[in-house]
């Protein structure tokens, strides 16, 4: 500033300088607005700029310190805003510089050549440099962000793959479970059919045969015939009766017919034939599948047999209750305890049998008793 400037001009220059400088403060938050304000002030400088009447040097074309704010803001724009916005800013700056030079250069005609070239080079170079710096920061930033996005995408894809695999595994597990349930149900149905075939076939024929042999024996006895033949007939009759008993045991081992009348009836029948008093309490809302009933029945039979043979108990109990959609069968006795699933033993076998349908068997049998064995079975295989 030169002393020749009037007071209002000085005030205006100071005000412009303050406003221009202060736009930098808001550059991070409002880069476009701040740049807009600064650019507008620059444009105002060009339009209404104070032209120094002095002949030289080209004082009015020198940027004031405050005009650096525009370049700082251009840098910010290039660094933090999309490229089209920053390129528009760059163009605006270059155009502004060109217009400024065009506006003021003729006033300094004597020095026009080199000074104008120097001013154009300096302004254009500085503007470009500010933009390039900002843009390269933006580029680095964009690259880093892209890398993060890429990594996120890869991670998402991996997660999706893992989820797909999990879903496939769950589907497979469900399939296998269904297949197992079908296999178990089919095997029970097959056993039941075999028992029925035995009942309707071999057992009936054998009973009829035994009846006929009995008649033959009685006829021979009454006729006082050949003693040897009578002996043979008696032996055949005895054999037929024993075979009948064997067949009955065999059929009952395959599928106890009493199971057809429900688990409660079957367990009751078991308790009736036990060698010690056994209390039966069946409380289930829903009847389990035939396969589950059969497993429960055979487990109860085996446990009752164990109780009789090993426990020394004076009484026992079988209770069935509902355990959250699963059937709980507790078989207890007041015997000496100490039951444990010896490898290859009955209890271990029961546990395996229960596990084939995803059931569990737990034993609580401290030395000195009492013993409580709880079998948990699903409603369906």
């Amino acid at each position, binding site marked *: 500033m030169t002393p020749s400037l009037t007071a209002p001009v000085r005030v205006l220059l100071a005000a412009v300088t303050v406003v221009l400088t202060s736009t930098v403060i808001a550059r991070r938050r409002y880069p476009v607005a701040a740049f807009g304000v600064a650019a507008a002030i620059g444009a105002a400088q060009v339009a209404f700029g104070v032209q120094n009447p002095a002949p030289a040097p080209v004082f009015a074309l020198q940027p004031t310190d405050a005009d650096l704010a525009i370049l700082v803001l251009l840098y910010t724009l290039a660094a933090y805003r999309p490229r089209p916005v920053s390129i528009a800013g760059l163009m605006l700056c270059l155009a502004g510089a060109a217009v400024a030079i065009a506006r003021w250069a003729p006033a300094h005609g004597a020095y026009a050549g080199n000074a104008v070239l120097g001013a154009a080079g300096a302004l254009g170079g500085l503007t470009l440099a500010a933009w390039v710096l900002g843009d390269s920061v933006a580029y680095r930033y964009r690259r880093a962000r892209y890398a993060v996005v890429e990594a996120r995408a890869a991670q998402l894809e991996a997660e999706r793959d893992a989820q797909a695999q999990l879903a496939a595994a769950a589907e497979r597990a469900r399939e296998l479970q269904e297949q197992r349930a079908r296999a178990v149900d089919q095997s029970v149905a097959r056993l039941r059919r075999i028992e029925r075939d035995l*009942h309707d076939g071999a057992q009936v024929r054998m009973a009829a045969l035994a*009846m006929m042999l009995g*008649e033959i024996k009685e006829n021979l006895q009454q006729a006082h015939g050949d003693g040897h033949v009578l002996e043979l007939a008696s032996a055949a009759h005895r054999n037929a009766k024993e075979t009948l008993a064997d067949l009955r045991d065999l059929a009952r081992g395959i599928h106890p*017919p009493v199971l057809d009348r429900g688990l409660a009836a079957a367990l009751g029948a078991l308790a009736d034939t036990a060698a010690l008093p056994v209390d039966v309490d069946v409380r289930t809302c829903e009847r389990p599948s035939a396969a589950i009933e059969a497993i429960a029945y055979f487990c109860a039979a085996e446990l009752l047999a164990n109780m009789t043979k090993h426990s020394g108990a004076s009484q026992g109990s079988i209770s069935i209750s509902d355990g959250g959609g699963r059937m709980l069968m507790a078989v207890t006795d007041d015997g000496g305890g100490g039951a444990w699933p010896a490898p290859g033993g009955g209890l271990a076998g029961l546990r395996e049998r229960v596990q084939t349908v995803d059931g569990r068997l737990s034993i609580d049998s401290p030395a000195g008793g009492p013993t409580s064995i709880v079998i948990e079975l699903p409603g369906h295989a």
Partner: protein
Amino acid sequence: MTPRRLRIVLAEDAAIMRDGLTQTLARRGHDVVAAVADPGSLSQAVAAHQPDVAIIDVRMPPTYTDEGLRAAQSVRQDHPHVGVLVFSQYIETRSAAELFAGAVKGGGEVGGIGYLLKDRVADVGDFIDAIAAVAGGGTVLDPEVVRHLLRAGRRADALAALSPRETEVLSLVAQGRSNAAIASAFTISPRVVEKHVASIFAKLGLAASDNDNRRVLAAIRYLES
């Protein structure tokens, strides 16, 4: 045994057994007035023929579980004077108890009742004796059931009051044996048996009325214990 000619309805779904029994019974001088294969035909045949005894297989169509037992109960309800002999491939104490429990409702003149293992047909003579006993209003319980009950070793309070000998006598009563048969089984005099039986009836709280009926009731007590 006095050869009384019995009129019999036979319900058995297996043809070979049905035909075999029919022939055997005929040879022994009894009339199988109807041989049927399902519960429906059975009740019709009983209503039509009013036989001395109905022999009923437990397993019959449609479900082959305990249709025979239900049929036997309805025969007893509709035709109380008809004796019912149920026979089964398997012995179940509970089925026997059910059958016998339904047996003595109403009182009055009631037919006999029996529950036998199917194997018993092999001993034809014994089987026919059992049929005759049931036809005569007696009670026949398979020795197997009695054996189960004895092995179970549990008696209701009323039965706990019986002496060991009385329990033995009762088990034979439950099998449908006569006093004379029981006497010879234990090699004691019929008078002693009568004393035991009277004592059993007293201890079980059975009023002194018709002797046969009391024997049935005692057998039922025994079964239900």
